[in-house]
């Protein structure tokens, strides 16, 4: 992708990205649009924002969304209770409302004198109207505080990364303004790089066997929860700690419990596969 003078994200040493993802990040930065990231659990959606911040040497602001989060809280909070309390006991100057206006995460990102990376994590946890309430603010990158008659305008548009687990449908109007990227489950080649970030000294023969078995397991559609990156890393740790020779991995699949976390999946696998590949050696 051609650079047009804007900061280009090239990844960071501790986070492995694919080229399409890097391009999506860069086009989002160039166009000043929020980047919406979706993907299976364990594909590094949240870590992306951290990596962008590190890669570009910018500060990161994280806004974790909960089911009770309101859009307004991201802009500013007017602490009326504190003001009321102060007015009763009279130990602070209550005539200036500004003392009781606190900027939220979005507000802080706008007010910052330098460009920041803003992560709005798990946006779909909040109420279904939440994204719509932020439409204008994310579009214009400014908002108005009626209490103090002030308008906070972004000095630099923050690089906004939004993650979603698809728990709720996001409103169309919101989606139209975003750049969207779905992080696919890493292919074996990318996974190799990811594993090597965690285990720089891993033997090639072991890595190959591990990945072969891991990806065969992921092809079994009957699993309630397919093993993902996190489970793979745990499994490799267990294999290395147990000193399992790489030849026996695909034949015996030791420590299968680290990969299959659901009892039903475990039972299914033992009943349908372990017997079929002529192996009853299960941990």
């Amino acid at each position: 992708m051609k650079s047009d003078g804007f900061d280009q994200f090239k990844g960071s040493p501790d986070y492995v990205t694919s080229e399409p993802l890097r391009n999506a990040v860069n086009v989002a930065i160039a166009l000043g649009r929020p980047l919406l990231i979706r993907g299976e659990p364990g594909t590094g959606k949240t870590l992306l924002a951290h990596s962008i911040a590190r890669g570009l040497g910018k500060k990161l602001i994280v806004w974790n969304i909960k089911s009770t989060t309101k859009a307004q809280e991201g802009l500013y909070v007017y602490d009326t209770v504190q003001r009321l309390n102060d007015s009763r006991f009279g130990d602070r100057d209550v005539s200036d409302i500004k003392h009781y206006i606190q900027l939220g995460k979005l507000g802080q990102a706008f007010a910052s004198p330098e460009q920041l990376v803003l992560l709005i994590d798990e946006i779909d946890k909040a109420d279904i109207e939440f994204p719509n309430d932020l439409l204008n603010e994310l579009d214009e990158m400014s908002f108005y505080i009626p209490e103090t008659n002030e308008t906070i305008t972004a000095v630099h548009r923050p690089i906004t990364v939004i993650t979603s687990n698809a728990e709720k449908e996001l409103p169309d109007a919101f989606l139209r303004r975003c750049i969207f990227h779905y992080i696919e489950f890493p292919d074996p080649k990318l996974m190799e790089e990811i594993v090597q970030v965690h285990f720089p000294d891993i033997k090639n023969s072991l890595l190959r066997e591990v990945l072969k078995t891991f990806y065969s397991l992921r092809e079994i559609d009957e699993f309630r929860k397919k093993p993902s990156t996190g489970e793979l890393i745990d499994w490799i740790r267990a294999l290395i700690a147990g000193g399992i020779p790489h030849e026996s991995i695909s034949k015996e699949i030791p420590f299968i419990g680290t990969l299959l976390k659901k009892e039903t999946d475990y039972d299914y696998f033992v009943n349908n596969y372990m017997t079929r590949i002529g192996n009853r050696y299960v941990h």
Partner: protein
Amino acid sequence: MFTDFFYILRKRKVPVSITEWMTLMESLAKGYITNLDEFYFLARAILVKSEAYYDHYDVAFQEYFTGIETPAEILEQILEWLKDPLNRMTLTEEELALFDSLDFDELLKELEKRLKEQTEQHDGGGYWIGRGGTSPFGHSGYHPAGIRIGGESRGRHAIQIAGERRFRNYRNDLTLDVRQVKIALKGLRQLSRIGPEDELDLEETIEATAKNAGEIDLIWRRSRKNAVKVLLLMDVGGSMEPFALLCSQLFSAAHSSTHFKDFRYYYFHNCIYDNLYQDIERQEAISIDRLLRTLEPDYKLLLVGDARMGSWELMERYGAINYYERNETPGIVWLKRIAEHFTHCVWLNPDDPRFWIHPTIRVIGKLFPMFPLTLDGLGQAVKRLVVKK
């Protein structure tokens, strides 16, 4: 530029709007896109907002940029045949060695060549399968997608990537997974105020404080909790066998949904008679009489079954498919009692709605509003369950 592509996307049911199209035009004009590969990914990032449409996008992309119809059906056949991952796990040493001896690029080239041939000839997938010992794909039994994934290099051509149609499984008109079902079930909500008074009622507090001449008077209230109780009755065995996986996904989603106040489930076989069962093997029975006595009518009832049976099994005494069940009362009477007891009921039918002309399905469909067991159908059913009566 590329305006036809926009219309092809719309034709393929990708919900693209003018706003998004203009964004794409902007990034083209600014020169952020320098080649077709980048165009493929960036246009997708800008135009498509859900992985459920990635496959539609791939199909449209192929149509616009190569002008050929998709050889999807062939790929489908190969994938179907090679679906079993065991093919790969049970390889003998010799087969493994043989497979390893082939260069990956060679393998890839060969696969593409054959795929092309296949398209032109338009014959079935038997060619691949029949090859057996002579084809590198046949005897290794390796999933073609596996070859592609393993051998993928960064410079792959965008059309080929689109041609892989890797996102076919994400289309939501095809698949239903536990998580999606859970999301659909989240619609089953009826919030009411229960539990301890632990939430500040701001309006009331202001009111009381004002009345109190400014002396703060805090008013607390109970927080809102979900009051929905769910009863799930599932048909198991017999003609329901093909839908076992689907049903178990629905069950697993409902069972792990923590937001219900109460969740009960029972099984039946074919049709409901005097008893329901607490286990799939139908050993532990519970009588319907007792069930209707103990469960309040405000339980939301979900029935899952194909409703397909012999008409005597539904309409007649002693009609039960299991001879020893000896039902004194015909199944239809039991179903009516259930339908009358509960205020909100739906019937989810995993069978294709095209086959719902079957007589017993029609009769049961009159008793219970019937919906297909798909994501859309489930969504509609959930809506039906929460309407106020």
